[in-house]
């Protein structure tokens, strides 16, 4: 009897809870402002009339709003969060933006490793935050035509500073390639002052001295040096790579006068400045030089046979413990990884970069560096309630004031500007982060500044203060080589329309399948280089000429 009563009361309680839950659910969905709008909207009271008046006034004046005059709003802002440089949620940049614009940035910091998944789901479901940072060029081209992002050209009076930069002579051509159907749908991350970085040949200089040979100036001389090192250290290999075979080709091919797989690209297509057109690298005659170099290196025991499976950690381990003597990779690893680790076991051991080498066969002396700016964009949700204020905010990040805040924090507190214009970081701030995994990353993450946080117009001057001087020196050398014309910037891939893009993807996939299946056997000697022509013919049969045609048509269209 007692049990029956308990059961009845339980049933009533459960029913009441379910009813309450249902009603709450209905209540939530009946308010369109709360259900359909980006999350920031729900936080504002209904003052649409006032807001519109303010917007009209702002539009008239065309100047960035001061926060104190405007209604406080919350705007959601999604970006990736690096494990090595975690951005603080309530960082200095967020605070300064709130003070100036009365905009509270509610950061959605998505772990870097899974950012692409999160971004894909958000884009595919059109459930976006007000601002999303880190949209790549392919996503921009796919989703801008669907109307998910605001067109910057519709807000020209608000984004004048940004347009002034990207439409200046030095960037106008590149900017053109990012336009979609005549519209501009994202703020590109731009370089203001970057410490120059390039994937270059780095050699163990102490071992070079041991060989008695001079610094190599050609690829043939480099090969001689590697052979001489091998002779002195017969138990060791001389070089390897960190990201599988196509990455290795990317690092070597262009520098050897050919091309393909540039800068982490999985595609054999590259821009050949001598011919001013896009080419598929592996089918060019010049590519034979590259494959011959690698096949010989494998045969002579210079190339580590694990090259095809080696990852970054293993490569760094081998370079840091003296097992390898040459690498073609970002110069930044030299001062940060190889040299400090080597110095503990041998004080004379050191890597250093050498100038781009001449290829006698192909008549070139050149190297390739990463794009000047980043091909990733910050886009504004087309459904946002505050388009104009967000456009103003993002535009401000490209102004002098915004650039300083988003790269260095608060003037007088986090940094000072010396009489000669040098940025001096507050010594207390440096001391505070001295015990972090990395001082530079620690400061940047805590302030929310720079490339891996909220910076849009990147200035790496802070890095000069806290890093090994070798970086800065190498940076200046690389800048010099770039200005001399020895190092070229990797150009952005041209924009394809939907049909072209589908065909390009299909052709590249087919070519990739053939190339990846065959290439190792030419390097490790299972197939003779005399048969290289048959692979070239097979690749041509898969449509390399059509692929080149598609690239060059799109490229010419962008130039016009």
């Amino acid at each position, binding site marked *: 009897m007692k049990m029956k009563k308990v059961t009845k009361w339980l049933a009533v309680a459960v029913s009441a809870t379910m009813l309450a839950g249902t009603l709450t659910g209905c209540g939530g969905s009946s308010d369109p402002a709360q259900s359909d709008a980006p999350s920031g909207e729900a936080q504002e009271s209904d003052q649409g009339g006032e807001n519109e008046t303010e917007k009209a006034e702002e539009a008239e004046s065309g100047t960035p709003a001061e926060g104190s005059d405007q209604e406080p709003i919350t705007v959601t802002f999604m970006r990736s969060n690096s494990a090595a440089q975690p951005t603080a949620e309530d960082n200095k940049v967020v605070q300064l933006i709130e003070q100036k614009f009365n905009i509270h940035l509610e950061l959605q910091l998505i772990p870097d490793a899974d950012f692409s998944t999160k971004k894909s789901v958000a884009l595919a479901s059109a459930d976006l935050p007000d601002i999303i940072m880190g949209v790549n060029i392919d996503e921009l081209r796919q989703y801008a035509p669907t109307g998910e992002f605001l067109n910057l050209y519709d807000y020209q009076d608000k984004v004048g500073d940004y347009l002034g930069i990207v439409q200046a002579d030095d960037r106008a051509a590149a900017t053109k390639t990012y336009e979609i159907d005549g519209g501009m749908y994202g703020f590109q991350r731009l370089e203001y002052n970057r410490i120059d*970085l390039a994937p270059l040949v780095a050699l163990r200089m102490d071992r070079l001295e041991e060989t008695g040979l001079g610094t190599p100036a050609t690829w043939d001389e480099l090969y001689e040096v590697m052979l001489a090192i091998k002779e002195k250290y017969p138990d060791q290999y001389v070089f390897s790579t960190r990201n599988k075979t196509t990455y290795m080709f990317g690092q070597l091919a262009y520098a050897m006068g050919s091309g393909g797989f540039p800068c982490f690209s999985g595609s054999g297509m590259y821009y050949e400045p001598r011919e001013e057109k896009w080419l598929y690298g592996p089918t060019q005659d010049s590519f034979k030089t590259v494959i011959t170099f690698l096949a010989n290196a494998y045969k002579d025991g210079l190339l580590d046979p694990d090259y095809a499976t080696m990852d970054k950690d293993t490569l760094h*381990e*081998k370079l840091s413990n003296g097992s390898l003597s040459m690498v073609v990779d970002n110069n930044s690893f030299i001062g940060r990884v190889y040299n400090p680790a080597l110095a503990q076991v041998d004080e004379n051991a050191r890597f250093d970069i050498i100038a781009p080498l001449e290829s006698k066969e192909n008549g070139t002396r050149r190297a390739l560096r990463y794009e000047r700016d980043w091909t990733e964009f910050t886009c504004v949700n087309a459904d946002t309630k505050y388009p104009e204020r967000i456009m103003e905010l993002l535009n401000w990040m490209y102004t002098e004031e915004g650039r300083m805040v988003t790269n260095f924090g608060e003037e007088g507190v986090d940094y000072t500007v010396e009489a000669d214009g040098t940025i001096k970081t507050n010594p207390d701030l440096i001391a505070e982060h001295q015990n972090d995994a990395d001082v530079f990353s620690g400061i940047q993450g805590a302030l929310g500044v720079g490339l*891996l946080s909220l910076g849009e117009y990147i200035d790496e001057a802070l890095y000069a203060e806290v890093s090994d001087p070798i970086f800065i020196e190498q940076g200046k050398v690389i800048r010099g080589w770039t200005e001399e014309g020895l190092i070229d910037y990797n150009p952005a891939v041209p924009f394809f329309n939907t049909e072209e893009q589908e065909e390009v993807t299909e052709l590249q996939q087919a070519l990739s399948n053939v190339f990846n299946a065959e290439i190792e056997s030419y390097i490790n000697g299972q197939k003779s280089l005399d048969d290289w022509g048959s692979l070239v013919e097979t690749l041509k049969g898969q449509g390399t000429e059509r692929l080149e045609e598609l690239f060059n048509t799109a490229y010419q269209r962008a130039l016009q």
Partner: protein
Amino acid sequence: MTKRIEEALRPGKKRKSPGEKVFSAIVAVFLICSCLLVIYPIYYMFICSISDGYAVTRGEVWLYPKGINLKAYQIALTYQSVMRSFRNSLQYTVVGTAIATILTALCAYPLSRKDMYGRGVFTFIITFTMFFDSGLVANYMVVSSLHLKNTIWAMVLPGAISVWYMIIMRTGFQSIPDALHESAYLDGANDLVIFWKIILPLSKATMATIVLFYAVGLWNAYIPGLLYMDDSTKYPLQLLLRNIVMSSSAAGNSATSVAADTAALGKNIKYAVIFITTLPILVVYPFAQKYFVKGAMVGSVKG
């Protein structure tokens, strides 16, 4: 001959033949190797975490630590997000396991009764979802439109009933003799009372197994946290861990500036974070693993 027969019949110690001895030795060596395969990665992680960072980079640490220091732990413990995510994961696991176990039991019990009306149809409908999933985007849209995002419910409700575990539990319930139900009915008990007072007490091993399965699943889950949580203060631990572990592979490989290139986490710090966060589980697991053995047997013997 007689002696051999006597030895064979003698209770207690039996002398092993040379063949048996060799077999036992092979088994022992095999098991020791298997144990080392499991233990070594954890040991390696630990010795790396207390070694000098550059020694780890050079690959010198593999058997014992070199340049012992606790700097990696000092740095790892300053990561506010680690402890916060640990608390979140604990909360999601406890609440999620409770909800999932209750709902699974409430679903499994009626389906275990042969006299339930439409049992076959319900079973088919439920089992159908095991083979055909609606996909990531559709799930995301459902959770988002129900306003569950950024709440604990987004973590625990979408996966509240695992059909597979429900079937295991149903099979466990079915193994309880019908006679018990009948006698309970005759004594005036209703279904709820039978479920509460007879079925559940007799299914403790099944329940414990399912609780563990759910708890481990929820503890290891990172996809719901990634998709349904925008607020990083609500991230589960696994999401954070994954980011740390992956930082030296894919994401770290595409560095195109000094800033991005420099922001690489030291291997020793990475291992220290992993070790700190894994330690509680390592401590608890040996005491809980016996239920897994029982769980594997649930429903395996019929009749």
